[in-house]
């Protein structure tokens, strides 16, 4: 199968401002993402997950390696690929209402006013925010703000969504609601999603395949198919033996690896 999105041995180093020492964040990380799959990348906090995803989004150049979308190397944010930030409160435009935030990408590509109006209504309804169109982001709860950010991302008509721990800042129940919402949208819009998270449960619940990142400098360690059938239910899926087995094996791998690294650090 031809790779839809191919991450080809990307490395990223920063020159430390003071000492001039080179800090290596990513070490030749490679990954292939199939069209319309849901792939989760899991790794501990501070392992370079965000850097990895921002390079794929074209928001940051890699030190070496390249990212290919449909076999074409990217330079800068490609069309039809949208990055969803973890910090929704910093990513929404505070001077724009919910409606105007969602309208933003359509205005940027010069869509007609009537089309924008219609599409805004559709996307806002899709994320369950009908009736909140004229409120400002800071008048909404965290979960609602992330819904606005999702609606705005959809308004850019993406084929690929890159999710950078999008749910790590909301409470547990809201997180489960939003996981189901994202899965629903993924299926309906036939999206390809690359989710980066430190939450093992979330990765197993949502993804078709789970990739693990090693700690700094990060590289992709293993990619495993979960094989858990869809549609997934927030309660019953989590009780399935195959879910529990997969989650246990994954946790084992991650914890053993961390444990093995303690003497060396």
């Amino acid at each position: 199968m031809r790779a839809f999105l191919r991450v080809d041995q990307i490395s990223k180093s920063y020159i430390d401002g003071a000492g001039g020492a080179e800090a290596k964040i990513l070490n030749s990380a490679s990954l292939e993402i199939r069209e319309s799959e849901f792939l989760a990348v899991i790794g501990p906090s501070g392992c370079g997950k965000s850097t990895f995803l921002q390079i794929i989004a074209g928001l940051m150049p890699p030190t070496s390696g390249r990212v290919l979308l449909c076999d074409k190397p990217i330079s800068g944010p490609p069309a039809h690929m949208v990055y969803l930030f973890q910090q929704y409160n910093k990513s929404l435009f505070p001077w724009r209402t919910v409606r105007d935030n969602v309208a933003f990408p359509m205005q940027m590509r010069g869509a007609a006013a009537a089309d924008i109006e219609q599409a805004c209504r559709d996307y806002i309804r899709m994320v369950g925010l009908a009736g909140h169109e004229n409120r400002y982001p800071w008048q909404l709860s965290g979960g609602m703000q992330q819904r606005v950010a999702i609606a705005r991302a959809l308004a850019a008509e993406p084929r690929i969504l890159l999710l950078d721990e999008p749910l790590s800042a909301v409470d547990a129940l809201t997180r489960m609601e939003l996981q189901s919402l994202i899965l629903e949208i993924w299926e309906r819009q036939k999206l390809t999603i690359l989710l980066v998270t430190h939450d093992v449960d979330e990765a197993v619940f949502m993804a078709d395949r789970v990739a693990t990142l090693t700690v700094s400098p990060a590289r992709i360690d293993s990619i495993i198919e979960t094989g858990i059938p869809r549609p997934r239910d927030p309660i019953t899926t989590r009780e399935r033996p195959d879910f529990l087995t997969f989650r246990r094996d994954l946790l084992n791998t991650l914890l053993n690896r961390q444990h093995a690294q303690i003497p060396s650090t």
Partner: protein
Amino acid sequence: MKKRTAGIVLLILLLLLWEASARFGWVKSENWPTLVAVLEVTYRQLLSGELSLVLAASMARMIVGFVIGSLCGILLGLLLGTLRTLDGFLTPLVEAVRPIPVPAIIPPLILFLGIDDALKIFVVAFSVFFPMLVSTVGGVRNVDETLIRTARTLQTTQGSILRFVILPAALPSIMSGFRISLPLALITTVVAEMIAGSSGIGYVIVRAQYAMQPQEMYSAVLCLMVIGYLLNLLFLLFERRLIPWYHLSENA
């Protein structure tokens, strides 16, 4: 609301004290007119046009200078804030020129610009330029990187990022620049008119002082006070319309 009432009561008491001190001779001076006499002169001269035309001319100069100075400040501020290379090149110059007190450059400027409108508009623009520049640069620098990256991932061009992301995000800071530079523009207008030329409200005050006409002098000061107050009021209304989200979000 109660605090405000108390403040207004104090203001009225002080005005009454002024009236009483002049009327009952508590201040023994030929140059201390009663408030009523000053108000009378103000009313008469505003109606006759003697004062109102002068004020209008001063305001016109101030507004032209203010608009030119703030536009230049905002535009250069946007450039300096976004282009790091230009910033290193121009900042030393800005820092060197900025501390010059505006009145000090009026005499040398007279030699180039004469004593009329060109001079006054220039010095007002000059005095407004720097606070506008500094607040715009500050606003642009403080725009959260996440906002810009968001716009980039949503396929926004560089020009549109400046217009639709950086400018609105920097607007609260630009507005605080306006808040500083508006009274500054009024001050500079009056000072320039006092130093140079034979027109404007600043000139009226100086002339009244030379001519020993305290009523005229105080009436001009009173008018300036009211104008300054109204300008600030106008600014607050304008600000509320332009960035309604800002003060609300600060309280949220």
